[in-house]
């Protein structure tokens, strides 16, 4: 992959500060000042375009208050690229111009108004072009001071407006954005309690003795909790891994007036004397999330070191001893930062809390069927009508584990299947004692040469462990029986993440098709050939399929 780097100024290609970005992707620097040509280039590389408005707004524009007349022509090359290239375009811009604060003391200066309008126009473009990303460099550089970012000597000696530090900050921010385009943000924050959520050891000083109040260091802990609570509201899952007596920790949550976090904000917890790495692994299993989406936050350097060595997949940031720095540190961190927060993200904590409660209750029962009956599951089959197409497409795009073939059907594809066979192109909604899980599964069955084929069979991992897959199969089977179809064909395409759905096939009576010495294969060959199946093919006679746990569901 290549990132084409261009600018209105010179950016010192080959400077050491570019290394983090060149390690991320190969960099291709254009000629000095060729930013508009780079945007118009016919290639389809990613683009980092660094714009200094000072370089491109003509001096003669100064008298005009028609900002769009000045700015829209400058944005034309960008608009042309966005309409043509799908690869990411990162516009990093600076509207910095030295000036006396007096210029802006009574009204916003002409220059500041122009910069503000430029930024507005960029965000308007971003709203209609999902490949456009925007980086306001002035807010990046302001963190260390503009004077450290710019260097007039470099400008007069080499036409580069920036100092090494300025380039460094630009590169760090750009890497963060390109990295997030490629890799999802972290999903889970693992928190220690003593000296992390509050000052002091609750087991020694009791709930009333911990440091957690509106003054001094106690206020730093409160502000850290508030920052963490905000993450939770944006869909980050909070879990506890603490070496303590459990009752004492929950007593703090429930009765200390300084707590910004509530017990209901915590999705899972392991409060005991076991190794934290073991506990984090157990919680990852409970939440059905990979360890690589976990971040471990603990004041104790020894615990951090142990987590790094025992669970290297977990991200364990080094933390300053001064807790006063933590609130800003976690707010400014890229670890959890996403480009946007959806209403689905906001509901995530509750969904995972429900799932964790389900898993932990289920673990304690010996009579699984009895337990499943007791949670009053009500599945509902929904034909895929037009309003449900976006959800169907999203399930195809996002479901990785319980997904037989991981074919990312688009809404248009799904609409075609639904048109052909509305009865066997459906979504499934589920509610039970743990809440309304929403629309969480989907199946598409196609008939080819008189044989039924399981084109799509997927289920969100949020509802695993309920045997809902058996109920879905039962719906398919009863429809096929009415139609007099004899065989059901299925394909498992290993994706590296969906092994759990191969078990679904063997657990429900499907057998692997062996075309060489199985006479039954002859009947299926036409269908297998016309479907051009390349994965592992399974089949079963409809009447031989096993449907366990039939009586645990309440039919609507």
């Amino acid at each position, binding site marked *: 992959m290549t990132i084409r780097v261009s600018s209105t100024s010179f950016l*010192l290609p080959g400077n*050491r500060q570019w290394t983090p970005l060149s390690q991320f992707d190969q960099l291709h620097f254009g000629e000095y000042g060729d930013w508009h040509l780079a945007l118009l280039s016919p290639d389809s590389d990613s683009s980092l375009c660094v714009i200094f408005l000072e370089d491109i707004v003509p001096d003669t524009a100064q008298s005009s208050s028609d900002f769009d007349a000045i700015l829209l022509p400058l944005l034309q090359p960008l608009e042309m690229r966005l309409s043509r290239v799908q690869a990411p375009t990162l516009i990093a811009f600076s509207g910095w111009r030295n000036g006396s604060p007096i210029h802006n003391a009574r009204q916003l200066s002409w220059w500041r108004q122009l910069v503000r309008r430029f930024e507005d126009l960029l965000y308007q473009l971003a709203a209609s072009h999902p490949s456009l990303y925007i980086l306001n460099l002035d807010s990046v550089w302001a963190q260390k001071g503009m004077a450290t970012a710019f260097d007039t*000597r470099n400008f007069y000696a080499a036409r580069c407006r920036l100092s090494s530090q300025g380039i460094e900050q630009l590169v760090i921010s750009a890497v963060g954005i390109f990295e997030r385009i490629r890799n999802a943000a972290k999903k889970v924050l693992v928190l220690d309690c003593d000296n992390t959520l509050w000052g002091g050891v609750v087991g020694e000083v009791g709930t009333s003795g911990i440091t957690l109040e509106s003054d001094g260091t106690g206020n730093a802990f409160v502000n850290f909790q508030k920052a963490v609570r905000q993450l939770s509201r944006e869909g980050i899952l909070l879990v506890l891994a603490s070496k303590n007596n459990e009752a004492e920790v929950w007593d703090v949550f429930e009765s200390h007036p300084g707590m910004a976090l509530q017990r209901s904000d915590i999705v899972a917890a392991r409060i005991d004397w076991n190794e934290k790495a073991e506990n984090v692994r157990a919680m990852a299993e409970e939440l059905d999330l990979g360890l690589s989406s976990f971040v471990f936050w603990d004041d104790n350097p020894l615990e951090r070191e142990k987590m790094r060595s025992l669970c290297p997949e977990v991200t364990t940031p080094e933390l300053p001893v001064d807790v006063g720095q933590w609130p800003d540190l976690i707010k400014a961190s890229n670890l959890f930062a996403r480009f946007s927060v959806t209403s689905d993200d906001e509901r995530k904590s509750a969904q995972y809390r429900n799932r964790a409660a389900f898993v932990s209750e289920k673990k304690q029962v010996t009579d699984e069927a009895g337990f499943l009956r007791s949670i009053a599951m009500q599945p509902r089959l929904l034909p895929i009508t037009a309003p449900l197409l976006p959800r169907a497409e999203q399930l195809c795009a996002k479901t990785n584990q319980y997904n037989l073939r991981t074919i990312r059907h688009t809404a248009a594809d799904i609409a075609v299947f639904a048109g052909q066979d509305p009865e066997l192109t459906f979504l499934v909604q589920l509610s039970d004692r743990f809440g309304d899980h929403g629309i969480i599964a989907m199946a598409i069955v196609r008939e080819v040469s008189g044989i039924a084929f399981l084109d799509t069979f997927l289920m969100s991992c949020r509802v695993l462990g309920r045997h809902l897959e058996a109920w879905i199969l039962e719906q398919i089977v009863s429809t096929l029986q009415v139609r007099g179809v004899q065989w059901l064909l299925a394909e498992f395409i290993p994706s590296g993440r969906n092994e759990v759905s191969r078990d679904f096939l063997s657990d429900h009576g499907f057998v692997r098709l062996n075309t060489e010495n199985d006479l039954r294969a002859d009947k299926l060959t036409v269908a297998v050939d016309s479907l051009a199946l390349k994965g592992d093919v399974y089949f079963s006679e409809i009447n031989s399929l096993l449907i366990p746990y039939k009586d645990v569901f309440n039919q609507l």
Partner: protein
Amino acid sequence: MKPTLTGLLRQHFPNSHIPDNASNLAVGSFPEWDSLAHFNFLLLVEENYDVRFTIEEMADLKSLRDVEVALARLSAA
């Protein structure tokens, strides 16, 4: 400990052979050492030695020896 100028030169031009006694080397001694690479090298020296060259020095310091002399002067000042 600060890296030596020769060490910095090797870091900056990892694909070029830099002899132990490199004082006589200068911009143009090998193809990679062009004026842009030289400018970036002087910035690297500034960072590592915590000094700042003037715009005139950026233009005048051509060889490793020139840089050595400038550093000696700056550290004495």
